[in-house]
């Protein structure tokens, strides 16, 4: 997946969009249109279209829809 940080800690947390859910995994797409299977047990249930924060192939959180408001 597309990131410019170190996978060993935390700044490689990558926001991805869920394309489809396949059991405990989901096919997800990052900002550079890379697709990968992500384990989603830790944020289940997930739906197509949701934005997840992933780390090392595992989703560890959700990105809130109102994120842009944080900037204002």
């Amino acid at each position, binding site marked *: 997946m597309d990131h410019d*940080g170190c996978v060993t800690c935390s700044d490689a*947390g990558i926001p991805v969009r869920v394309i489809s859910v396949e059991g405990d995994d989901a096919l997800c797409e990052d900002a550079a249109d890379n697709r990968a299977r992500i384990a989603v047990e830790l944020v289940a249930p997930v739906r197509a279209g949701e934005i997840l924060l992933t780390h*090392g192939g*595992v989703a560890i959180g*959700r990105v809130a829809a109102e994120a842009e408001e944080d*900037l204002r």
Partner: protein
Amino acid sequence: MKYVSEFRDAELARAVAAAIASITDPDRHYKLMEVCGGHTHTIYRHGIKDLLPEQIELVHGPGCPVCVLPMGRVDEGIEIAERPEVIFTCFGDMMRVPGSKGNLLEVKAQGADIRMVYSPLDALRIARENPDREVVFYAIGFETTAPSTALTLQRAKKEGIENFSVFCNHVTIVPPVRALLDSPDLRLDAFIGPGHVSTVIGCRPYEFMPEDYGKPVAVAGFEPLDILQSVLMLMRQLDEGRCEVENQYSRVVPWEGNLQALRSMAEVFELRPYFEWRGLGFIAQSALKLSGAYADFDAELRYSTPGVRVADPKACQCGEVLKGVLKPHECRVFGTACTPDHPLGALMVSSEGACAAYFNFGRKSLEKVEIGSKQ
């Protein structure tokens, strides 16, 4: 992509920087520590330090797991990797961390079967594909990474995969922060809290920092505007005399954290009584080991690692840099004997290490000009 580009808007960044400058007391020196190595990386990669008033000093904290790993744990990992029956798997950064007799990359060159993986789930896949070999995953990282290891072990147990084990070096963020706050040689005004660790543990664990030590905290994301906004939040707290935990990264960090991830970790791990940190020494209850229910997957038990302690090279001042006592360029071997190509200390290895960030993003030359001009 949304949630990335908006947080790199130069015009907004200048506006936030101006707001910070407007409430900065010209007669005061502010020391803010960014706990997480990811923040250090962002600060230098995007030149954030240059947007801040000179009164604000950013001090780099101990939040890079590669950097705080003591040499003895590297040596023990290498000993496991050298066993002929083992396929040893680890993240890329771990390959170059120096042990007392070399690093994993050198051991791989000598014939050991060491494979770089992106995820612990990749290591588990290798175990499935190689049932006649023993696959060991070198687990490292704070609470951001620990849930991935926990989930992987839960899957391994569920599938009954017996040729898979984990050499667990996971650490926790709160005990070293408390150790820093108790350190007599470091005066800090406020903390930029780690964003993705907090995605898992939430913001509540930091409440002792304002309550017991009187230090404001702003949990922050990793884009340039995240860092600037968190600095503004901390400066407002200091300006208004407030002292609390604030969540700048609320688009990702729930106040209570990720309860599913915490439950998973609670099942798979338990706290070690103590663990050695590079530069900080032994800290009680600061690291994780596999719980009794997962003892069959514990590489420390499977290979009877002795728990050796190895001192850092004498020339290396990683400890002082990790505690924020020295800036990276003030280390006696920075940029000379110790470079990203030939690191002596772990802080020069990881892209999140303060020394690597200084070296790669040009702080070395700038800082040295400044020092020269003062003399």
